[in-house]
């Protein structure tokens, strides 16, 4: 079991290197000058100085190696645009809200999605199923920016005097409600559908028939036998979705004015702040990788068949 974990962890290294390399090469294709803060051109000498200061005049592979070393020591370098700030600082400041938002949205999605799917499956092809799936399909297909906008519209504009829910910032717990729902509704719908399908499939299995033939109480059959097995695909899905939630939340962050890395990422890219972009991309990639790794380990725990070393 530990061997499995170690092997997985080791594998992440080449992946990270590849990510850095690709981001690096891509970023260099972007035309533009990070040092330009206004419309006026920067004198060539100053440009050269700045480039030397940030090591941009070295050949690309040298920069790459230096950067990799930096990543290994958790030093993501200085920001090119905001002269007196480190990328690490930026991360420290902007990452927590995104992380929290992603985690809350995921929690929302799981807590509401799985029971919804379970209910739909247990009452398959009857009204509870149809309603639940209707809600799920809507939540899944409607883009989150619409949901966010509608939430703001109703809670702040129309019913502003009844509810006192802030629609921007990420401070009080009330301010976290709407963004969480907006971001989490899609995944919730996805989990509901996934759970429903998985439960239905599990119920067809022979071992469920065996469990019933043994006279076990329905509750036990559902919870111990059915749910456990049905949740495997849901758990597997949760990892990448968490990764996606954290890395793709920029729209929600924009709408709700949340100071997270999603929003900052866009700014950095358009501002050609190479080091920030690099740093954030590496960070985001790591999140995706870690999320997947956790899921793999969880999968091994849930499904004993996969535990054997292959």
């Amino acid at each position: 079991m530990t061997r499995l974990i170690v092997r997985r962890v080791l594998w992440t290294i080449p992946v990270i290197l590849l990510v850095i390399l690709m981001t690096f090469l891509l970023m260099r294709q972007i035309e533009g000058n990070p040092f330009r803060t206004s419309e006026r051109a920067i004198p060539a000498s100053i440009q050269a100085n700045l480039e030397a200061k940030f090591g941009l005049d070295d050949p690309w592979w040298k920069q790459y190696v230096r950067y990799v070393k930096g990543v290994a020591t958790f030093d993501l370098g200085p920001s090119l645009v905001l002269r007196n700030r480190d990328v690490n600082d930026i991360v420290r400041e902007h990452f927590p809200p995104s992380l929290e938002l992603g985690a809350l949205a995921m929690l929302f999605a799981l807590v509401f999605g799985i029971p919804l799917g379970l209910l739909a499956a247990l009452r398959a092809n009857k009204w509870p199923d149809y309603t639940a799936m209707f809600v799920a399909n809507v939540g899944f297909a409607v883009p989150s920016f619409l949901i966010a906008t509608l939430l703001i519209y109703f809670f702040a504009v129309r019913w502003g005097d009844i509810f006192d829910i802030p629609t921007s910032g990420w401070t009080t717990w009330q301010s976290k409600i709407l963004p969480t729902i907006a971001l989490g509704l899609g995944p919730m719908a996805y989990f509901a559908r996934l759970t429903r399908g998985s439960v239905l499939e599990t119920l067809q299995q022979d071992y469920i028939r065996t469990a019933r033939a043994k006279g076990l109480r329905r509750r036990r059959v559902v919870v111990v036998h059915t749910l456990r097995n049905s949740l495997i695909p849901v758990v597997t899905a949760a990892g990448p979705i968490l990764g996606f939630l954290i890395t793709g939340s920029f729209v929600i962050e924009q709408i709700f004015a949340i100071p997270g890395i999603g929003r900052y990422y866009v700014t950095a890219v358009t501002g050609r702040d190479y080091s920030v972009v690099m740093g954030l991309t590496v960070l985001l990639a790591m999140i995706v990788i870690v999320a997947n790794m956790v899921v793999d380990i969880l999968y091994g725990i849930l499904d004993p068949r996969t535990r054997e070393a292959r």
Partner: protein
Amino acid sequence: MSATPLLEVRDLATHFFTREGVVRAVDGVSFSVDRGRTLGLVGESGSGKSVTALSIIGLIPQPPARIVGGEVVFDGRDLTTLSERELEDVRGKRIAMIFQDPMTSLNPTLTIGTQLLETIRRHLHLPKREARRRAIELLDEVGLPNPEARLDDYPHRLSGGMRQRVMIAMAVSCEPDLLIADEPTTALDVTVQAQVLDLLDELRTQHDMAMIVITHDMGVIAEVADEVVVMYAGQIVEQAPVTELFARPEHPYTEALLGALPQLEDDTARTGRLTAIPGRPPDLLDPPEGCRFAARCPYANEFDGCATHMPALRELRPGHMVRSEHPTTERARRKEAAPA
């Protein structure tokens, strides 16, 4: 053996209500099983034998299927009238069932021990330690080596034969009065088949259980059954004690089934061909009005009304029921009576 039979199935009818129509999977089936005796239920796939068994303990998938008629009287109670909760008390404790494919019939994510113990604790209400001890005893009884270690194993680590033994152990764990075995050996290797059949027979005598063995294999019937019921297209076509059935089969279908058995002792052994029964069973969505075997029956002709009139199940000899207008003995008699 006097006494009331343990299980009496009367006119059981189970239909599947599908989008294409109503499939009459079991259409008026009656038989009984006495305490301590083994009933063999034989027929090809689609004959309704599994559905019959599932209907007895109420395990048919309820949305498409439903018991539309008949009674299943077990120890005085009609099981078709019981609620789900009451049935849950019967299943596993009074009537147990094992299934065909041991690979898929065990939950792959739970240990053998968990699956064994949950049955024991559910019905016998034993504390954990005692239940565990009993589980080990059971595994030993079914012939599993190293039973204590087995408890913590997952199903995928056992072979097919071992898994089936575990299933059997689970089934007899609460001393049921009746064990229904649905194709218990079909998915197993030939060598293991015999062992499992022996095991079942042994357990039956030891625990004084009645058994219903469902199979399509006449060889299995010959081994374990006391009484045989032959099913075809949702109906019983012949019923007799086992030796009687093999010695003097009456229904053309039964004859054909026996003819399809490879005979090792005959002189035709290496030269004769296995007789296959031509044709296929009727579609139960729209079964024919008359005898359902008529289309494949080598003796049906246009004068006997077999195509339009369903023959009734009649007692040809004491204890021997047949549903046919052309039972063997009558055919022989007719032949003699006919002018040369």
